[in-house]
């Protein structure tokens, strides 16, 4: 018997952990995941609706500066949410029962498309979002106390830095995945 045959025999005789036979738990978990996905879709939809309603509620369209400022910020958020949602749906559609290489090919295309999102759309939307915020600053300065204005300014800068760092981490993570697929 050759060396590999020995290895193979040992492999097939290896004591494996016993099945827990908890089929119901598996089915429940699967249904729970489906529910979670539906909830995410509903939450994203509601967020977009709330943002648009807020825009109408504060009558931002009556004041040109507020219209552009708030409009750009809300528009960017809505576009980003829709892009992320569409991207998530695309990944969900990949079947895991296809061959390993066919799935890899789909994943490489998917992550290459994600690169366009990360390198083009995200910076563009992020910059436009900040521009919208800057447009609103004179209105804040005019209508808010100086203390509250400073608070908004500092917290916004910190939020933008945190957001940029988070996006940077996410991009790095996905670039590593692309590398491992090639």
């Amino acid at each position, binding site marked *: 018997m*050759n*060396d*590999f045959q020995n*290895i*193979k025999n*040992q*492999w*097939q005789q*290896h004591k*494996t*952990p016993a*099945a*827990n*036979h908890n*089929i119901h738990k*598996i*089915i429940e*978990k*699967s249904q729970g*995941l489906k529910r979670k996905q539906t909830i995410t879709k509903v939450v994203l939809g509601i967020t977009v609706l709330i943002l648009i309603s807020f825009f109408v509620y504060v009558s931002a369209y009556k004041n040109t500066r507020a219209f552009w400022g708030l409009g750009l910020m809300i528009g960017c958020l809505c576009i980003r949410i829709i892009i992320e949602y569409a991207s998530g749906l695309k990944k969900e559609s990949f*079947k*895991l*029962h*296809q*061959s*390993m*290489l*066919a*799935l890899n090919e789909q994943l490489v295309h998917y992550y290459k498309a994600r690169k366009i999102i990360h390198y083009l759309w995200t910076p563009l939307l992020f910059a436009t979002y900040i521009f919208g915020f800057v447009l609103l600053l004179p209105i804040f300065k005019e209508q808010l106390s100086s203390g509250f204005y400073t608070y908004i300014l500092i917290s916004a800068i910190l939020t933008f830095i945190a957001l940029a760092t988070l996006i940077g981490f996410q991009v790095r993570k996905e670039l*590593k*995945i692309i590398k*491992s697929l090639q």
Partner: protein
Amino acid sequence: MSKKLKFHKIYDENYPKVIRLCLGYLSGNEALAQDMAQEVFIKVWQYLEDFRGESNISTWIYRITVNTCLQELRKKKNKKLKIEIASDETSEDTEIENQFASMYRCIDKLSVENKSIILLELEGLPQKEIAEVIGINHSAVRTRIHRIKDQLSKCVKNE
């Protein structure tokens, strides 16, 4: 047969194969392999209605197992996996476990594609089916298996 009954049968018949494959990808880490096997069967349940019988059910399950394991491994890539050896066993058992640990270490040195091919070969899957699971042609599988077998045997011997 109802979906639940069909799933029950598939689970009972395929769990040992799935867990062995997961153990191979996870360097023998039993706890992680059990979690991964559960993930595999969640996918099996989700896709069960898509199975049209165009391939063997085992080929279909192996495809899901390979793809799920690789997907989970990409997520866990930064966490170093520890090769587990049971401690409360007899010296004979420990020796076998040590042999397995070295086998896992050698398998771990292979590329993702070669690792998948050799794990399926160790399971005793016919080469034609391995080709279907991986997505390359039969003759390429034959050549690759020959090369990986040598590589693995040498590595295990030197461990």
